[in-house]
């Protein structure tokens, strides 16, 4: 399976600032996703990162708050903008090669906002 590297692994940020999380995959992948996992909860899909075009956001998530880039088939970024304490979560990058294929996850970025 693809090796997924996320940076940073964790960060503590001030309210009102923005942070960009990077996801690098060691091979080209068809599909890339970004998930959020709030403390003690399950995973929620933020958006599907589309290569060369705007991401597809799930209900409750908007581009102004979570801009996503995907310039090629191995790299994507998620920015968490104008952060508040409610954004404290683990953010996870996930990839798979196509429908009906296993979906794999990076180790996640643990974000705390003061």
């Amino acid at each position, binding site marked *: 399976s693809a090796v997924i590297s996320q940076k940073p692994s964790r960060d503590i940020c001030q309210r009102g600032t923005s942070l960009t999380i990077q996801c690098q995959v060691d091979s080209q992948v068809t599909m890339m996703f970004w998930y959020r996992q709030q403390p003690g909860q399950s*995973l929620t899909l933020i958006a599907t990162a589309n290569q060369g075009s705007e991401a597809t956001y799930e209900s409750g998530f908007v581009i102004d708050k979570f801009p996503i880039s995907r310039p090629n088939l191995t790299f994507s970024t998620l920015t968490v903008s104008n952060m508040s304490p409610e954004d404290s979560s683990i953010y996870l990058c996930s990839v798979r090669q196509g429908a009906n294929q296993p*979906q794999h996850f990076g180790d996640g970025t*643990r974000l705390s906002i003061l």
Partner: protein
Amino acid sequence: SQQGEEDPQALSIQEGENATMNCSYKTSINNLQWYRQNSGRGLVHLILIRSNEREKHSGRLRVTLDTSKKSSSLLITASRAADTASYFCATDGTHETSGSRLTFGEGTQLTVNP
């Protein structure tokens, strides 16, 4: 919205015993995937079972799928203390606007006591 529902929410057993976790879902699926998450870490992919399959094995893991009941189970045999983790099921279905995407259940926290 989360499609999968898992039970039990928490399970505590002794080393050597078997652990069974169940997952129910509501709509048609292409496949169902099981994951393990150690505290504060990323998700590790365990097994993918397709909608036309009824049972799959991987080492000490056995997964069943009953599409008529919209349910799946994960059995871990001869459990070890290292199996202590959260286990999630995720259903892969095709959505009109966002295509194929994975939706997670709430998870089962398994504790294996030495």
